[in-house]
């Protein structure tokens, strides 16, 4: 949570810039049979951006750890591998 807050400070400026260019209409929207929920559609871009901070944070800390020689536990889950 603390890591998230720290990295958020360094990312909000680029985010604001993205916000200025990211408002195009995606155009003709295909309607799925499923009700996606209006709120769920609207909030996704925001959550994805905030989630992107988490993804960046994790990458950042993994790199720091490898530079310091701290081993990151490998993903040994056979049902959920990384599929490189």
């Amino acid at each position, binding site marked *: 949570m603390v890591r998230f807050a720290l990295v958020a400070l360094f990312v909000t400026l680029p985010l604001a810039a993205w916000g200025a260019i990211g408002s195009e209409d995606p155009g003709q929207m295909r309607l799925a049979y499923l009700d*996606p929920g209006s709120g769920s559609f*609207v909030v996704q871009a925001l959550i994805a951006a*905030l989630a992107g901070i988490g993804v960046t944070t*994790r990458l950042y800390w993994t790199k720091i750890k490898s530079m310091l020689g701290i081993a990151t536990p490998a993903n040994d889950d056979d049902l*959920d591998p990384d599929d490189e």
Partner: protein
Amino acid sequence: MTSTPTMSEQPVGASFRDPSGFVFEHEGQIYRQVNSCYASDYAALMSSGLYEELVSKQLLVSHEEVEPPTRACPEHHLTLRPMQIPFISYPYEWCFGQLKDAALLTLRLQRLALRHDMSLKDATAYNIQFPSGRPIMIDTLSFERYEEGRPWVAYRQFCQHFLAPLALMAKRDVRLLGLLRVHLDGIPLDLATGLLPWRSFLNRGLLLHLRLHARYQSRHEGEGAPARPRPLSKQAFTNLIEDLRATVRKLEWTPHGTEWAEYTSGDSYETQALEHKQTLVRGHLKDIGPTSAWDLGANTGVYSRIAADLCERVVSFDIDPACVERNYREVRQAKEERILPQWLDLVNPSPGLGWAHNERDSLASRAEADVVLALALIHHIAISNNVPLPKIAAFLATLAPHLVIEFIPKGDPKVATLLATREDVFPGYSREGFEAAFGSCFEIVSTHAISGSDRILYRMHRRS
């Protein structure tokens, strides 16, 4: 836009929402009709390499394209016969680990789909089954061509079917899985966030995907198609999926402290009695030669594993979520393929649910086993739950033709414990009463006293 099947097909109860096609049964086989509106998505699925990758990794059921077995309706494009699944289970019958693995599989499918420019158009837990121990996707028509910029139409459904129940089980109470019986399209996010302890929102993933998500849902409730939603780039979409994955992975539930999880370690059996019982059960199963077995009150699955050596598949039921979880962890660890651990309260088994009571089938209507094992079980049903022995016999007779059942008399320590705090209103609960009750529905094939105890093991065959 939805197709109407002809009278000669019987679509399965839950298969009516997706216009891409529907599932139907014909002469005991399951088929999937692909409608013409899905033709180009189907072609993309098959030609993009996604189908090959998913089937080779055993993440999606394989299928073959066949001639329609009955007269096809005008919407018909293709008929598929997918890999058959003998026993269908539902998310409200799973343990925590199964739901978590199903969630991670769904996210993995989406991740792999995006690499082939495809995407999941729904994320329902009912699309996942466990025919060989591990989760697999059964709805081939869930994949559609990806359009860059389009937000994930299945995001709400994923959060309600998977993330909300997993968070509730991990952070509040494992029994909250039962909410999925009431909310067939997943737990509403406002309900989930209301029930979760405030500490759970120190978890960033739950804060975003549940709490913030719920807030936006209520804010935009009752609106039609979203007005100018922000486009979601492919990279942002990937980040969203990755974050959901990290959030789900962090959710843990440790099975301990519930009533029966410690059953095998403080066992009242002497070793000799246990070994004798196992030998008897093995012998009965060898004689019966079943293809499939149901083990009721299976605990962590000791006898299910004996049965699994002697038949093709075993469904291993228990009322204690900790036992089902331990059973499933063993299945995962040992990569077992014949055992399906399931949660079941035999006194209140899964009913028919959904539209016209017909979308999700009752437990009894899914019975397809050759033999039922009811070991160390009957006293719980008859005494703790006051179900008369004739009623128990009648219900068990509907489940399978063969029965291997253990009678525990009143003198046994376990039964004495059950009677310790209550009046003994069970005059019919005796060996004679048991044999009379079961004798009307079953023919008693053999009787063995279990050495070192007062318990008796019966093998029975249902009367026709």
